[in-house]
């Protein structure tokens, strides 16, 4: 039932394609401040991908209905599949870099949720984790590239960026953006060195593998680079980078297929290889590359998705995907065998299949330009292994007589699992019979990549001759697969060559580094935190003082010491008392003595107030100090009786230096500040002049408190009494609590 939605979209997209004349756009503002709008620009390339997404989507939904059966979690899988499809549609239709990025990440998220579907198995979980890290990490780099690109072009619209490209071509920032985009695309499309997540993602249910990890999502990177090829085409690094990375991936992935026995993983590596070929096609110069790319994308979707379905059917019916145990299945699964055969024809590029048509175009694209002839020869073994893989999927497990280890009570897959692979695969063959049906579509799409893309005449005989070595080699590989497998599987690559180990190692290193950071600065010791706080302050102060050294000198020169008189000498004495007791506090160890000395410090402060002309303040300070000492002493006595006292740790030289330094810096600042006194004395003069005549009081402070600022005092008293009541209530609560025990 759910398949109706993608099918309706598919019909709509086909209609739109048939009537296609010019791209249509849809825009509405999103973040006007940044000029970001939800813009969609649906041209032939976008429509082509839309057809792919909805067409394969229809088959996947039908297939999934049968595959999941009465699985209790099927609702979750379907809802994420819908989310994924919507995100894919959004991503290929988007005309804004940030909108594209949003959908791009949404597909990663959907992929994560879908891969972790079989959460019972440890491998499924690990692969989901890995895929998520790789794709989200690549996504961030991509975003960075988009940011730079949008900044260069002054717009975030893709069409706008393409139009503005000549303006910033050749700038280093543009090249930086290009490499950011490469990283993003390579992570998504599983290119070396980010390729390892894709085969591991095969832990996902089959419909997911067929849809996300072969037909659509992994092609997003290809789509992105094809879409913005114009912007960077003039950079001499663009093509070669893609050819090297794509070519290496394509070849390496094929070697890796030989190491596998799991049918699904074999297909996954073949997908990685195909994606590498696509990357290479984008990098190739000339107009033929675009045409070949589009044709190959279509062909790949038409044969790889059905092959995944086939693998799913085989797994569903036999319970294994190990090609060593599978043989002669055609008898029990004729429908599936037929689909596999049709798909394999296309994959192998046999004549009269659509895969053949695509392969010819690829060969023509590669032939263009002498420099790339080598690539052409290099691709022969790759194609040969592709042929072998196709043969394994179609011939070996279905027709080859094996050891007969399969259980006898096997049956064909249900109807809904037979139709989708058959439909897609036969479409691949039918289109191969008359590729001219889709020609206009392919050309229109290719024109969006390179404006001068056109269909090239294919020289059939030459092409067929060129295929002979491929098939010869392919048959050899197929025949000796088991032996090759044994040899290749034995070869253990040194781990430093494996990208996966580097990812894991970098995780370990990061965690290790983090634990060092945490241990050194996050040790949980209060004293250490305080030391860090104060030493930072000291450093900042020293820096500031040094930076303003010239001013600093004048500052200290400004300081007014005034005339030496009795009062000043007394203040100085009080200060000496302060300094001496402060230093004493850093070396003393007995808590009681420490307390008394701290009282002395308070006394020093009070004395300095007294002689500086503020007797009332001095009195207050004195009372507070005495009260504090008495209260703390009584607490200390209790603590002593309980015997839980910690002796203070002895002063360390570093701490002493820190205190002295900070004290000196602060003192310097105060001296400096005292030199620039701009405080107004207007208030003091006013109160001095008015307290006796207006309020009839000789004590200015008293008059101030109860007369001039009487309301303030009232407020203060109110607050104090409120606090008293609150405290009383808290104590009452304590007492109740204790009585309750």
């Amino acid at each position, binding site marked *: 039932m759910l398949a109706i939605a993608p099918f309706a979209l598919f019909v709509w997209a086909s209609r739109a394609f048939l009537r296609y004349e010019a791209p249509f756009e849809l825009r509405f*503002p*999103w*973040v*006007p*401040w*940044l000029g970001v709008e939800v813009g969609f620009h649906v041209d032939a390339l976008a429509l082509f991908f839309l057809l792919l997404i909805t067409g394969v989507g229809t088959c996947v939904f039908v297939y999934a209905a049968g595959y999941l059966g009465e699985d209790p979690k099927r609702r*979750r899988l379907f809802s994420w599949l819908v989310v994924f499809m919507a995100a894919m549609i959004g991503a290929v239709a988007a005309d804004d870099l*940030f909108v594209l990025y*949003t959908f791009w*990440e949404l597909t990663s*998220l959907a992929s994560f*949720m879908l*891969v*972790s579907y079989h*959460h*019972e198995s440890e491998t*499924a*979980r690990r692969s989901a*984790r890995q895929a*998520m*890290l790789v794709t*989200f990490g690549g*996504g961030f780099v991509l*975003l*960075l590239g988009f*940011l730079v690109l949008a*900044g260069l072009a002054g717009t975030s619209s893709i069409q706008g960026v393409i139009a503005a490209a000549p303006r910033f071509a050749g700038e280093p920032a543009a090249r930086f953006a290009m490499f950011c985009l490469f990283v993003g695309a390579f992570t998504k499309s599983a290119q070396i060195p980010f390729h390892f997540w894709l085969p591991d993602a095969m832990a996902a249910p089959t419909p997911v593998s067929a849809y996300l990890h072969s037909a659509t999502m992994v092609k997003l990177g290809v789509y992105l680079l094809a879409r913005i090829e114009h912007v960077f085409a003039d950079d001499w690094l663009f093509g070669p980078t893609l050819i090297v990375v794509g070519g290496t991936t394509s070849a390496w992935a094929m070697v890796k297929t030989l190491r596998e026995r799991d049918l699904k993983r074999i297909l996954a590596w073949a997908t990685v290889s195909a994606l590498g070929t696509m990357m290479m096609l984008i990098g190739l110069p000339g107009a033929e590359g675009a045409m070949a790319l589009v044709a190959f994308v279509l062909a790949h979707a038409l044969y790889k998705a059905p092959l995944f379905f086939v693998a799913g059917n085989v797994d569903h019916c036999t319970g294994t995907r190990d090609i060593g145990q599978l043989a002669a299945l055609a008898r029990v699964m004729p429908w599936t065998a037929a689909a596999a055969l049709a798909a394999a024809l296309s994959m192998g590029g046999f004549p009269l299949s659509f895969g053949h048509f695509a392969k010819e175009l690829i060969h023509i694209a590669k032939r263009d330009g002498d420099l790339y002839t080598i690539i052409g020869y290099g691709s022969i073994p790759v194609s040969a292994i592709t042929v072998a893989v196709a043969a394994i999927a179609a011939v070996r497990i279905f027709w080859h007589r094996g050891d007969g280890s399969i259980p006898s009570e096997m049956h064909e897959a249900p109807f809904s699992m037979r139709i989708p692979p058959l439909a897609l695969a036969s479409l691949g063959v039918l289109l191969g019979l008359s590729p001219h049906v889709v020609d206009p579509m392919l050309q229109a799409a290719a024109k969006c990549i390179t404006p001068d893309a056109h269909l090239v005449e294919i020289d059939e005989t030459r092409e067929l001759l060129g295929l002979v070595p491929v098939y010869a080699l392919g048959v050899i590989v197929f025949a000796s697969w088991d032996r090759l497998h044994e040899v290749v599987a034995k070869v253990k690559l040194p781990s430093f060559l494996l990208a996966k180990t580097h990812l894991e190692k970098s*995780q370990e290193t*990061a965690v290790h*580094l*983090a634990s060092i*950071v945490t241990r050194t*600065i*996050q040790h949980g010791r*209060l004293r*250490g*935190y*305080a030391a*860090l*706080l104060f030493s*930072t*302050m000291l450093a*900042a*102060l020293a820096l*500031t*003082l040094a*930076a*303003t050294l010239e*001013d*600093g000198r004048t*500052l200290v020169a*400004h300081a007014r010491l005034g005339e030496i008189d009795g009062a000043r000498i007394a203040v100085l004495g009080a200060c000496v008392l302060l300094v001496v007791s402060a230093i004493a506090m850093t070396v003393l160890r007995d808590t009681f003595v420490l307390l008394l000395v701290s009282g002395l410090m308070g006394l020093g402060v009070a004395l300095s107030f007294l002689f500086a002309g503020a007797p009332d303040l001095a009195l207050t300070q004195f009372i507070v100090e005495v009260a504090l000492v008495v209260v703390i002493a009584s607490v200390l006595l209790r603590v002593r009786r309980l015997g839980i006292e910690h002796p203070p740790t002895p002063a360390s030289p570093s701490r002493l230096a820190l205190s002295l330094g900070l004290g000196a810096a602060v003192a310097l*600042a105060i001296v*400096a*500040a*005292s030199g*620039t006194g*701009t*405080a*107004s004395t207007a208030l003091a003069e006013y109160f001095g002049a008015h307290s006796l005549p207006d309020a009839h009081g000789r004590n200015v402070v008293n008059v101030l408190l109860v007369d001039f600022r009487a309301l303030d005092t009232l407020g203060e008293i109110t607050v104090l009494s409120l606090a008293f009541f609150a405290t009383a209530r808290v104590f009452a609560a304590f007492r109740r609590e204790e009585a309750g025990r």
Partner: protein
Amino acid sequence: MTALFALAPLVLLLVGGLLIMLVDAFAKERVEVSALVSTLLGASFVVAAGSLLADPNPSGLPAEITRYLAVDATGYFTDVVLTVAALIATLAAGSYLREHELERPEIYLLLLLSTFGAMVLARAADLIVLFIGLETMSLAVYGMIAMRRNNARSIEAATKYFLLGSFAAAIFLFGAALLYGATGGTSIAAIRDAIRGGHAEPALVMLGLVFTLAGFAFKVAAAPFHGWAPDAYEGAMIPVTGFMSVVVKAAAFASLLRVFTGVFGDPLLMHPTTGWPTLVAALALLSMLVGNLGALGQKNIKRILAFSGIAHAGYVLVGFASLHAVPEDATAAILYYFLAYAGGTGLALASLVAFGSKGLEAVDVDDLVGLGKRHPLLALPMAIAMLSLLGIPPTAGFFAKLFLFQAAAQAGGIFAWLALAGVALSVVSGFYYLRIVVALYASEPAEGAVVARPMRSGYVLLAMVFGSALVVKLGVMPGLYLDLALEAGRGLFH
């Protein structure tokens, strides 16, 4: 009277809080304080949001008010952020305290008063008012952390935070005193005018700047003034952690914004190479490094969020460092970031509350293993919060980070490199945010492991729905909020 109405979000909290205190003290039956307090915060939020939409810059207010408390769009915007965060924390506390039998009405009242102090701090136009706001907010938070009196971690956390916080407050106060000494004024406008007029000793102003910056850096937990944060966040109860990680940080940042664009907005002090942007850039880089690296090795989610909070303080400081080049854009980006951060972090901690029950809290990443399978809907907000904190669209965090880094990129020079470092370290942050998502959805508990049993409680569900809606709305349709942030940012440069 107009002043009272203009300051209604604050007045509501203060008067309402005192009334609730009285009702609770004298009522015969047990009062549902959590409901009352959340209603009050909700009302304050609605009033603040309404003012922001209707009349963000009221005129004709008496100077006796505006000299001390700014009444402008920025103020309303920060009110909205603070009430949102406080509301989520209160709702979470309503469930948490009851479920774990820690119910004490004082916590809600402290939370209310602390929010009030935070609002005063965020609006302060005078250094003395600023200090009063700062201490009102902080003292209440110290009390809230220490509320679990029989828990050693709680007491340790509160003691550490209190002592270091007092040092930091003293440092700030000393800076303010130096500024007063240099200019003879305490109000931001007076100090600014004295500096602009050339009546202030530059070296003293510089010293004052360094001291005040250090004080703020402590409150927002920017490295290297961050030491207290992981311990304090871990020791506090989860709702309190949520409260302090957002409210304290946002209020201190808002105040920093006022002080640094006001007092130190002088072109000479703001010079990109010799002025404070370099200092702030250093703080930003250090915070992003320490926060993101520190979080990697943590298992406790509260600690992860503490380090993540340090990293986010770093991101916001990137915005501060770019204020000199694009003042309005950077201010808007900073304000918007508050909202996104409040939503993300609040939501994460509310979810964490919801995951525990009956004295068993879910605090470690391992406790969350497989929760997404057993309770898919309940686990979703946590996943959304993590994606938002990481900055994945379509969530609030994506645009927040985008705007900030965009502003830094426009500032150019070392600030563009700072943005680059921010993006790179965001990738690192993926390791720990996604680890939580993976634990929820892609892991299975080991045999016999204790699995988290979520509580059933309406309050925290409400908080999660509210938070999720906010985070998703900010990510899908950021237009309105961004316009409001821009408007609020312009208010500062009138």
